[in-house]
C-alpha cells in the first residue's frame, strides 16, 4: 500500500514534477487512491476530520431522543410537543444544506463546516438549561442546523479525491457521519447511567450528559480548522489570490440546478430514504421503550443498531452503485436505487406490524441496511445530474432528505392521531409511492429505467448544454468536457446490440 514508486492510474506529465503527497494523485492533485487507515496530509487527513466532525453533528442532533423518557417527564412534554421538536430538529437543515453549498464555494469547506459546527455548539450546551416545551423545541431546532455539514463533507471529498475513488470517499464519509445518529442512542443512555450512578438525581443527570456531545462538537470543529486544508494545494484564500480558481456566477449555477428535473426527483426520493432514516432516529428509542417495556439502556442499544448499520450499509450502497455501473452503466445505477429503496419500503411496512421484540429488531436491522444503502445509491447518481451545478444539486438532494423527514413526522408522528406502529407502516407505504418517480429519470445519453439511450445523444452534449456559447468560447466548460470523458463508463457494457464495439470502450460519437 505504501509504494511511492508506483505510477498513479491517471498518468499525467505532472507526475514527473515529483508530487510531495504520500498518496498518488491526478493532474488536479486529487488522490486517485483511498487509504482508509492512513492520516496522510492532506487527502486522508481531510477525510478523517470531515467524517468525524459530521459524526459529532449527528450525535448532537439526535442526543435528545434516547433520553426522552426522562426529558418528557422533567419538562412535562406531551406527544405533540415531542413531535413538534422532532420536526424542528430536521427542518433547520433544509435551508442550511442549500446555503452550505454556496458557503463552501465562497470560503471553502474547511471554514464553512467549522463555522457551522462551532456556531451550533451553544445550542447543545444550552440544552442542559431548558425548562419548557418551547425551549426544548428551540434547542433541537438550532442544533439540527449542524446537519448541513453533510454538504461540506461531500464537497470536501469531491475536492480531494479523483472520480474513480470519489464515490467510495463520499459514501464512507456520509455513512460514518450518519453513524452518529446510531452511536448517540448508545452514548447518551450510557453517559446518563454513569452520571446517575455517581449520584446525580435523574432530572439533573440527563442535563449534564449533554455536555459530552457539545464538547465533541467543539473539539472536532477546532481540529478541522487547525489541521485541515480546503484543497490539495492549499486553502481557498491563498489560491484565489494566485488566480488559480475561477469563480462561477451564482445565478447561472442556481438556474441550471433548479431547471434540471432530475435534481428534484432525487430530492424527493432522498427524502424517502434519508428522510426516513432521520425520522427513525427520532422515534425508535421511545418506540421500543414504550411498546416492549425495555429499560432506557436497552431501548438505546436497540435503537443504536439502526444507525450503526451505516458503517457498511451506506458505503455498500455506493459500492453497489459503482458495481452496477460497471456492468449496466447509468441504467444499472438507477435500477439498483429503485429496487433497494422499494425493498426498504416493504420492510418498513412489515416493521410496523411486528408485535414481538426479537422479530421487530430483526426486521428493523434489515430495514436499516436497505434504507441506508438507498442513500448511498442516490449519491451514486447525483454526481452525474449536473457538472456545473454539482454543489447545488447535492445541496438540493441533501435538503430534500430533510424535507422528507419533516413531512413524514408532521403527517404520521405528530400528536396522538396514529399510534407509532401505524405511523411506521404508513411511512413504509409512503416510501413506496415516493420512490416511483425514479422511473421518470432519463439521461438522453445513457437511458432511464425502462427506456434505452437516444441513438445520437452524448455525454458531452448533455454537460456542455449547461454553458452558453459565449462561455464555451472562453473555455469555462473545459472541466465539464473532462468530466464527460471520464463518465464514459456510464454507457455500460454493450452486450448484444453492436458486436463491433468492444466492451467498456468509448461510446459511439455521432
Amino acid at each position, binding site marked *: 500500500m505504501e509504494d511511492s514508486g508506483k505510477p498513479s492510474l491517471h498518468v499525467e506529465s505532472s507526475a514527473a514534477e515529483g508530487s510531495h503527497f504520500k498518496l498518488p494523485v491526478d493532474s488536479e492533485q486529487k488522490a486517485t487512491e483511498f487509504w482508509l487507515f492512513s492520516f496522510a496530509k492532506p487527502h486522508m487527513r481531510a477525510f478523517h476530520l470531515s467524517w468525524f466532525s459530521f459524526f459529532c453533528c449527528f450525535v448532537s442532533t439526535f442526543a435528545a431522543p434516547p433520553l426522552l423518557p426522562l426529558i418528557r417527564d422533567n419538562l412535562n412534554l406531551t406527544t405533540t410537543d415531542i413531535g413538534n421538536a422532532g420536526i424542528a430538529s430536521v427542518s433547520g437543515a433544509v435551508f442550511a444544506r442549500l446555503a452550505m453549498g454556496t458557503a463552501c464555494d465562497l470560503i471553502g469547506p474547511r471554514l464553512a463546516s467549522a463555522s457551522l459546527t462551532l456556531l451550533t455548539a451553544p445550542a447543545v450546551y444550552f440544552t442542559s438549561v431548558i425548562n419548557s416545551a418551547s425551549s426544548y423545541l428551540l434547542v433541537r431546532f438550532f442544533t439540527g442546523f449542524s446537519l448541513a455539514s453533510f454538504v461540506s463533507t461531500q464537497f470536501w471529498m469531491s475536492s480531494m479525491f479523483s472520480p474513480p475513488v470519489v464515490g467510495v470517499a463520499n459514501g464512507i464519509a456520509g455513512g460514518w457521519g450518519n453513524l452518529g445518529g446510531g452511536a448517540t442512542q448508545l452514548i447518551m443512555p450510557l453517559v446518563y447511567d454513569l452520571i446517575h450512578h455517581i449520584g446525580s438525581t435523574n432530572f*439533573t443527570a440527563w442535563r449534564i450528559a449533554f*455536555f459530552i456531545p457539545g464538547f465533541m*462538537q*467543539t473539539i472536532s470543529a477546532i481540529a478541522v480548522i*487547525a489541521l485541515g486544508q480546503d484543497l490539495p494545494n492549499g486553502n481557498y484564500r491563498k489560491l484565489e489570490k494566485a488566480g488559480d480558481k475561477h469563480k462561477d456566477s451564482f445565478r447561472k449555477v442556481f438556474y441550471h440546478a433548479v431547471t434540471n428535473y432530475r435534481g428534484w426527483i432525487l430530492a424527493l426520493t432522498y427524502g424517502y430514504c434519508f428522510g426516513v432514516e432521520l425520522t427513525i432516529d427520532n422515534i425508535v428509542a421511545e418506540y421500543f421503550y414504550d411498546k416492549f417495556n425495555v429499560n432506557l439502556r436497552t431501548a438505546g442499544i436497540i435503537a443504536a443498531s439502526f444507525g450503526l448499520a451505516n458503517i457498511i450499509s451506506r458505503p455498500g450502497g455506493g459500492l453497489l452503485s459503482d458495481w452496477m455501473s460497471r456492468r449496466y452503466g447509468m441504467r444499472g445505477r438507477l435500477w439498483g436505487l429503485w429496487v433497494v429503496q422499494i425493498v426498504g419500503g416493504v420492510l418498513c411496512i412489515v416493521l410496523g406490524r411486528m408485535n414481538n421484540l426479537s422479530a421487530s429488531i430483526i426486521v428493523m436491522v434489515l430495514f436499516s441496511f436497505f434504507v441506508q444503502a438507498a442513500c448511498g445509491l442516490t449519491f451514486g447518481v447525483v454526481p452525474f445530474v449536473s457538472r456545473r451545478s454539482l454543489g447545488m444539486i447535492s445541496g438540493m438532494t441533501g435538503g430534500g432528505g430533510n424535507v422528507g423527514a419533516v413531512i413524514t413526522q408532521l403527517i404520521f408522528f405528530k400528536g396522538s392521531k396514529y399510534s407509532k406502529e401505524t405511523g411506521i407502516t404508513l411511512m413504509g407505504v409512503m416510501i413506496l409511492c415516493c420512490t416511483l418517480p425514479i422511473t421518470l429519470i432519463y439521461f438522453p445519453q445513457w437511458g432511464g429505467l425502462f427506456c434505452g439511450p437516444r441513438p445520437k445523444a452524448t455525454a458531452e452534449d448533455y454537460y456542455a448544454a449547461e454553458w452558453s456559447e459565449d462561455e464555451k468560447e472562453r473555455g469555462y466548460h473545459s472541466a465539464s468536457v473532462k468530466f464527460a470523458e471520464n463518465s464514459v463508463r456510464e454507457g455500460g457494457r454493450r452486450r448484444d446490440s453492436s458486436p463491433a464495439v468492444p466492451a467498456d470502450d468509448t461510446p459511439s460519437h455521432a
Partner: protein
Amino acid sequence: MATAPLLRLVLLVSCIGSSMAVLFSSLPNTLTVTSSPAAGQVLHAGVDQIKVSWKLNQSTPASADSGYKKVKVLLCYDPVSQADRGWRKTDDHLKKDKTCQFKVTTQPYSSGGGSFVYTVERSIPTGTYFVRAYALDSGDTEVAYGQTTNAAKTTNLFDVVGITGRHASLDIAAGCFSAFSILALVFFFVVEKRKAKK
C-alpha cells in the same frame, strides 16, 4: 386418586393464567384509601410528605379479605396528566396499565388497616395525582383495590411540582463552553485573515 395432582395442576395453570390477564375492571373496590393532601393542594417533590391510610370498607363483609396478603400503594396520574401522553395510558390489563408508575410502599396486609408516611421523591415529575392501593394475594396478584378518587378520577386530586433538575453551576458551565466555542471561531478567522494578508 390420580385426579388430585391433575386437579392441582389445572388449578396452578389457571392461577398463572389468571395472573397474566388480571383486568382492572374485574377487581372489587373493597379498600377505603385516604391521603393527607387536600383536593388541589400543591406538593413539592423531594420536600413534602403524604400520609396514606387504607382499610377494608365498612360495607364489605369481614371474610372478604381472607386472601389479602399484602398491600401495594401507588401514586397514579389523573386523566389530565395522561392526555396526549401515550406512555401514561390506562389499560384494563394491569400488566399493560401505565396509570400508576410510582410505588409508595408495599406492606403486609392486616385487617385493621394500615398507613404510611411517604416523602414525595425527587424523581416524581410534575403532574396531578391520586393514590391507589392494590390488595395482593400470596402469588402477588392483584385481587382488590381502593383509591382516593372516584371512578372517573375527577375528585380529590392533588398536584406535585417536580424538581427542575437545573443548577446554577450547569447554567454557568453552558455559558462558558458556548462562549469558548464562539471565541475559538473568531480567533481562527482572525488568524486566517492575517495569513492571507502576508
